[in-house]
Structure formats: C-alpha cells, structure tokens
C-alpha cells in the first residue's frame, strides 16, 4: 500500500511519515472499526426513537417542541455535501470528537432515567445501554485515529454541555416524555452526523476519494 497523501487544496501531508505498512494498515483498520461502530450506533438510536415515538408520542405533537432543542447545535457542523467536502479533515475530526464527548453525559443519564420509566419496553432500555457502551468505544477509537492522523494535536477543545437532566426527571409525565423525545431525536441526528463524517473521512483518507 502506498503511503497516504492527504491533500486539502494545495496543501498535502503524508499521513504515515515513515511509510511503514504497520501504520497504514492500522489506520485502515481503525477507520473500518470506527465506521462499523458509528453505523451500529445510528441503527440503534434510530430504532430506539421509532419505538419511543410509536409508544409514547403518537398524536402528541412533541416534534414541535423538539425543534432547536439539541444541545450540540452550537457546534459548527457542515450541513450538506459541498460544505462537508470543503471542511478540512482536522476540523471534521475535532467536530466528531466534540460530538462524541458531549454525548457521554446525556447517554449515561438516559440509561438511568429510562430504567425508571414505568412500563418501558425492553427494546428501548437495552438499546440505550448498548449505545452508551458503544459511544465510549467509538470515542476511544476516534482519539486513536486523531492521534495518528494529526500527530501532536492540541489538547481537547471544549464541547457543548448538556443540561437537560431536570426536564428528564420532572414529575409531569407529559413534560418528561417530551424531554425524552427531544433527547432521542437529537441522539439520532448526531449519530447520523458522526457516521456520515466518518465515512467521508474514510473514503478521503484511506481510499483517496475512490470508495
């Protein structure tokens, strides 16, 4: 495998400076695993959302409340293909890391609070648990990739903090369900973003835009 040349405009760098096969193969392997994880997280969150919607949100119009409710909306994520392709891989990677980190805390509380819900279907609870676990693993993997692709990267940037715990714990059942709906809706969206960005990076870095 020839060395990976990463070009952004006129600026090109070698991904594995020493060109050794171990570095290249390990990077390919890391990306492979990361995309598998991100795809899995998306599948789980999508199913979880649909299950919740079917069971608790029919005819309630929670969607209107869910607009603009994601805590990660402050992150400057690209919103179409052209924008994403013009974003530097370093920026894209740090965005992914920021998203993953900002979901650690909400996922933890999601599991705790879902457990406490009366009559919660197992499909929702088990998926929540699995997503929390896989999110951590993906974060680890991403940090490894980040370290390899951008050696000497600066320390972690601040990430958006979630503050929706009180609304998850409120006594008002309607309000609580609405809060859950919001959280699951945002989770589905952000996991889709992470998945798409990773696949973009994978094709760009490993396969040189020739997937």
């Amino acid at each position, binding site marked *: 495998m020839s060395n990976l040349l990463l070009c952004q405009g006129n600026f090109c760098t070698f991904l594995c400076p020493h060109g050794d096969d171990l570095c290249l193969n390990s990077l390919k392997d890391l990306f492979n695993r990361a995309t598998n994880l991100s795809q899995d997280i998306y599948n789980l969150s*999508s199913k979880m959302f649909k299950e919740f919607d079917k069971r608790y949100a029919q005819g309630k119009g929670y969607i209107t409340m869910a607009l603009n409710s994601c805590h990660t909306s402050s992150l400057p994520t690209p919103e179409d293909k052209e924008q994403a392709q013009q974003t530097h891989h370093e920026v894209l990677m740090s965005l992914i890391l920021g998203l993953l980190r900002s979901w650690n805390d909400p996922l933890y509380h999601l599991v705790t609070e879902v457990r406490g819900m009366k009559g919660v279907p197992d499909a929702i609870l088990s998926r929540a648990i699995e997503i929390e676990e896989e999110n951590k693993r993906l974060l680890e993997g991403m940090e490894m990739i980040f370290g390899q692709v951008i050696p000497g990267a600066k320390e972690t940037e601040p990430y958006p903090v979630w503050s929706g715990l009180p609304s998850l714990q409120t006594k008002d059942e309607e309000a609580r369900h609405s809060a859950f709906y919001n959280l699951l809706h945002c989770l589905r969206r952000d996991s889709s973003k992470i998945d798409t960005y990773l696949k*973009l990076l994978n*094709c*760009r870095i490993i396969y040189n*835009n020739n997937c």
Partner: protein
Amino acid sequence: MKENAASRVLFILLLFLYASLLNGQSPPEKPKLIKCRSPGKETFTCWWEPGADGGLPTNYTLTYHKEGETLIHECPDYKTGGPNSCYFSKKYTSIWKMYVITVSAINQMGISSSDPLYVDVTYIVEPEPPMNLTLELKHPEDRKPYLWIKWSPPTLTDVKSGWFSIQYEIRLKPEKATDWETHFAPKLTQLKIFNLYPGQKYLVQIRCKPDHGYWSEWSPESSIQIPNDFPVKDTSMWIFVGVLSAVICLIMVWAVALKGYSMVTCILPPVPGPKIKGFDIHLLEKGKSEELLRALESQDFLPTSDCEDLLMEFIEVDDSEDQHLMPHPSKEHMEQGVKPMHLDPDTDSGRGSCDSPSLLSEKCDEPQAYPSKFHIPEGPEKLENPETNLTCLQAPQSTNGEGKIPYFLANGPKSSTWPFPQPPSLYSPRYSYHNIADVCELALGMAGTTAILLDQTDQHAFTPSKTIETGGEGKAAKQRESEAYSSEPDQDMAWPLLQDKTPLFSAKPLEYVEIHKVSQDGVLALFPKQNEKVDAPETSKEYSKVSRMTDSNILVLIPDLQAQNLTLLEESAKKAPPALP
C-alpha cells in the same frame, strides 16, 4: 331609487350565492402532503395529494421554513417532480435540519392549508434502483462454472466520496418458479452465482438501500438462459468419492463378516478368567467351600512343604562337638530359631511372599524363626582395598514381631553362585541356617578381631535398605532402614551396635566366617576364620550359595546341596584365596 339599487345588488349577490351553491362550488378541501423523498441525500422532492377543488380552479402553493429560521419560503420548483410536487435542488437542501412544509390550496372561494409536515432529509433517503444490470455465464477451466452478475450504483448517488453508502440485494429465480432466491452484496457491485440448473431461463432483479434510508424499488427483470449442457456441479468428483466409499464399506463389511471374531478379539481382548491351580469351579458352584479349600490345599498352592523351598536357607554355624560349620537347624543356637528359607535362583518377588515374615510365621511349619538375609556386598574392585565398611545392622523389633533381623548392606552386581572355583558349594544335607546376628558376630567378632571384608564401594550401601521393602518386608524393612540410616554416619558405630547387643550365643565358641574377597562376578569367598579361641581343626565347612541378588544389592544365600563337594571345597578353600580373582 337608491334603496331599490342596493336591494337589487343584494338580491343579485344572493342569487349568485344561491346559484353557486346549487353548482357545488366551495373553497378547496385541505390538501395532504404524501411524502418527501431524497434520491441521494443532496436533493429532495415532496408530493401532495389535492383534496376536492370545490368546483373551481384551484392553485396549490407549498411553503416551508427551516428549523431555527423564521423566514418562510415558497417551493422553488413545482415542475421537475411532476404534478403536485415540489423539487428542492442542492441549493435549497440542508441535511440534519428540520423542514416544516405546508401546502395550501386556493380557489376563488377560499384557501385551505394542509397539516404541516416535519421533514429531515437525512431520514427520507430512497435511492433509485441500481443500473446497468448485466448477466454473464462464465465457465473457467478447472473451476466451477458460475453466473456473473454486474451492476452499477443508482443515479444521483455519490458513493466515491463516501457521502453515500449503499448495500445491494439481488434476487433470482427460474422463470417458472415461485420463490425467489435472494443474495446480499454489502458493497461490491458484482456477484457470482453458482449451482444453477441447466436448461432453465433465470430472471434476475436487484435493489439497493442506503445506510440510513429506505430500500429502492426492484430493478426491471433481466433474464438469462442457461444452456442445457451447462455443467452445474463438479459431479464427476463426487461420483468418484461416492463409489470409492461404497467400495470401502463393502470391503469392511466383508472383512468383518469373515473374521469378525478374531477382529473383535484383536480390538477387545477378552478378560482373562481366573486360573487358579486346584480351583474347582464346580465345587464353588456347589457351594462346598470346605472341599474347595481342601482341593486347593492339596495342590502346592499353600506353602507347606514348598514353603521350605521358598524360604531362605541359612548357614548355621554350629557349636557342636564337630566344631565345624554344620548346617544345623539347631535351635539352641538360635535365639529365636531359624526359618529355613530357600530361594530359587530364578525366583521372583512374587514368590518372595514366603519371604515375608508374616507369611512365614503363619504358614510355615517352622517355629518362630524369622527370615534372615545374609547380604554380602560385592565389589570386586575393592578387594585389594579391604575396607571394612561392614555394617551389621540389628533390625529393631519388627512390627511383625519377628525380632531382630540384622543385615549386611551391600552393593554390587548380581549374585552368582558361591565363590569357589569348584562347583557350587557343598552343604550338608540339612539346611543350614544362620542367624544373621550370629553371622554378624561371627563376622565382626565379639572380640573385634574378625575381619570380614566387605567391600562397600560407597555409602550407598545404606540406601539399599530402602529397597528391602521389595522383598516384602514392609514395615520391618523400614525400621531397619531407619536404623540403617541412623547408624550410617559412623560405621564404627555399627560395631559397638552389635557389640552392645548381647551375644547371641555367648557360651559357645563359634567358628567365624571370613569373607575373604569378592570377585568380579560377585563371587564371594568366605573363609573360615582361624580363631585362636576356637580350638578346632579345619573341618568341613558349610558353604552357602548366593542364590540371588536383589535390586538393593542384597545377597541372598542358600545352602548348596552338594555335600560331596564339601571336602573338596575345604581343601580348595585353603588354596583358593590367592587364586581367586
């Protein structure tokens, strides 16, 4: 007049209204948004269903606003998507953002608006079916033939950059069959199908699905005719394998049938039944145990007279008037009598059961004699080096109550016959026994002047004591062993050990035997010791034959049953020593 005009207008209006009501005209019904779809996550189209138009020409307008924006936009393109549709081009499409879309129907009578539809383009992706489906029959040499299916990704999907990820699914069936055979192709745009039936016409279809989104429609059918002579499977090999295995099975069956029994015995040898000499099964069946035992007894099973053969024989030094070594089962010399023990040269440990003190005491006729073993070390190399590493070990009271069994511990090669150039030594008709203690004393000399030369090449002489157990001595051996070890450090201790014991036969003078030397083949030369105390001419001597050597280098002596050689040996003994090897 004016009043007339106003009322007239009102009247006409009412008339119109009435007329229109009669005609069925009304404001349009609420339209309904059916669905929105994006073929490649870069554009999307929405379709609506119009309601009743109220009898009047109705216009439809689609308006939307995006999540986080307040500005309301109208549909940019009503035409591209067909009637009652709105097409959003790349410019107007954002991913991961909610669109709130509404369609309004306007006619002369009024306006009706649909319910808003909340759309996120991410989740409405439905690609076109894959394109360029090609079917090709391939038949490479030395490999199985197959159907090679190829296709390309659908339009409007950007797979190369990674923006769009697709999975494929293919299904095929013979034309007349009802069930489809489906295959999954995760990423590649080709598939190989094996195991097709020749002479059939196959129909093939393909569809695809994005990583987040809906399955596409099935592509139009492609068909291919499999020729009749198409080799479906590599059957010739399987036929060969089948025939071969059948032949092998037949051979095996035939072999088993012919030699079944012998094969079975070869694989599973029968358990040997008990074969006890003198054991009459019939008696057992009858339940006459007494007869059975008697029958057994009549055989030589139980050591009665045979016991004597099994028992070791000892050289007995007799203090009788003859004043010569006489095999003499005289008990007065013995502390506790002597048990004749005869060991066949070829005896094995099994027979040594008679050696065991317990057996002997129980079964043998001899009174409480105890087995004594006369062990003489062999170490021909050390002949010139007569170190008296002799240790006479007095066995402590064995748990069998056998009393002391002194031992000479020796090491050396296997025993051979008694060491005299003449044929094995004579003996007296009677078994000669020798109390080892006596021998010890004889050997070591109460006065300490005897010099039984024992070669003891190394300290290991003591170690054989461990293996005394092999003779079946059991605990007794262990005790001896412990005594052996205890006395090991200082061999001189052995001397006082013996000397501490009361002489076994004190009053009577004894003739001493001197082991002169030991030859290379383990031939021991015993020499009567000239003792000034013993005023006796040289007389016939009794000699013992070394019957065997145990593993522990213990020499087992038996009297030789050739009396006629006695004199010969006597004489030769005198001459022999220098001549002995």
